[in-house]
């Protein structure tokens, strides 16, 4: 598993010739091996930007991003990164099974059929191996994306609002599923979410970010033992923490 170190990271985007947006400013963050982090914050505060920097899809304007002491590009090249972003990104012309073969093909390995079958079962898609994305519901596609992200036993899992497009019931179900999967693998995970309940339910540590430019406002270690259940969500202390974090998300001015 991987440790992540962001040191004095800022990110500025150029919009026009002399129009710039400071998306992140002076960000320091350390994530331990096997830790599940949730990033919470208003829309546009730079959550996706952080994931892009950690995934090596973008470069910081200042500061450094290190994964296991190395630049993220190294992790890319070693195929040790699993990502699943907001809208499922499955290849529409491939079946579920064939979509899960993709990471193997990119890694230049022969697809491990037994492993793929196991993952399909793990995310509850047994029986849908030969279905194409267009034949699946939104929740099922998202589960397929997560299964694909897990294919090569990544050291780092980056999830950007993976359940953002789902209804509340499916979402809760997916939260339970994700926890179950994560408990089996204990992969270092960063989850970006809008939903306070989701963050608290899933994470070891919740980071609350401020509006633009993004910086970390609060850091909360979640006290509830695992496995967390539907009952956990009914605890007084759970509601209390939800209210508390929701308050700090509201704009102060």
């Amino acid at each position, binding site marked *: 598993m991987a440790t992540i170190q962001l040191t004095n990271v800022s990110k500025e985007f150029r919009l026009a010739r002399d129009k710039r947006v400071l998306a992140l400013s002076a960000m320091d963050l350390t994530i331990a091996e096997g830790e599940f982090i949730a990033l919470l914050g208003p829309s546009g505060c730079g959550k996706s930007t952080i994931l892009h920097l950690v995934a090596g899809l973008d470069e910081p304007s200042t500061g450094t991003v290190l994964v296991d002491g190395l630049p993220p590009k190294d992790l*890319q090249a070693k195929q040790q990164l699993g*990502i699943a972003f907001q809208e499922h990104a499955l290849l529409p*012309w491939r079946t579920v099974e064939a979509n899960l073969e993709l990471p193997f093909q990119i890694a230049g390995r022969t697809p491990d059929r037994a492993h793929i079958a196991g993952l399909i079962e793990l995310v509850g898609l047994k029986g849908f191996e030969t279905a194409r994305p267009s034949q699946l519901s939104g929740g099922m596609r998202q589960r397929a994306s997560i299964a694909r992200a897990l294919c090569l036993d990544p050291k780092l899992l980056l999830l950007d609002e993976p359940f953002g497009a789902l209804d509340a019931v499916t979402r809760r179900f997916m939260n339970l599923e994700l926890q179950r999967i994560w408990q089996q693998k204990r992969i270092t995970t960063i989850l970006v979410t809008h939903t306070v309940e989701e963050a608290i339910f899933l994470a070891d540590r919740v980071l609350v970010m401020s509006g633009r430019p993004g910086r970390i406002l609060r850091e909360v270690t979640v006290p509830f033992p695992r496995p967390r259940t539907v009952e956990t969500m009914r605890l007084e202390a759970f509601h209390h923490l939800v209210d508390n974090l929701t308050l700090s998300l509201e704009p102060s001015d």
Partner: protein
Amino acid sequence: MTNRLQQLAYRLLGLLLLLALWQLAGKRHLGGKTLPAFTDVASVFTVNFRRALLLRSAIATSTSAGLGLLLGATLGCLTALTAQLLPALSPGLNRLAVVVNALPSIALGPVLIITAGRQATPILLAAIPVFFLLYVAATSGLHSADSRLTQLFTATGATRFQRLRYLDTPSAIPALLSGLKLGVTTAMIGAVVGEWFGAPTGLGIVILNTMQNFQIPLMWAAVLVVATISLTAYGLIGVLERSVERRRA
């Protein structure tokens, strides 16, 4: 289902109306001596040796058009793939494609007759515009991959070649089919024009000879055959296009 039947019925109705107007215009000589009635043109097909001539010519022209389509599409796609793999070459290849497309076939025909021969000219004149069409279609198709998928490929360390193979090329298929659909008609026109420069056989030759000999119904019959072949191929690729779309939607 009823919707599709209804659509089909409307189309047939439209076709019948067109034929009826044609028939009326021909019988009343509204289009002068050069526009015969539909039945006069249709009766050409009942004459055995005429039908044989049209069939033979149709096969020759379709073969030229088909080979031209294949040649042009292959070269267009290969050029687009090259530009995608070696982006540094892309501006140069763009300019080449534009220049090739700007060559007027009327001016090119005689040159091709001398250099490539009478058989090859219809094929080449079909291939040239198809090359341009498919180069443009493939280039835009190869760039049409969803940005989320592009990110996924980058983050998982895909090489440029893997991206081309597993992402860009499959993403380009709908654009390629649209290009091919337009290419079919273009190739038929190119083949017919190419035949005018002196091909041994073909519908273009039939059209040219009948025009000179004032065999108006036969000329119209040949034109009708050209249009039917074009539209049939166009329709078939359209069907393929829709089935690809349905699989991906």
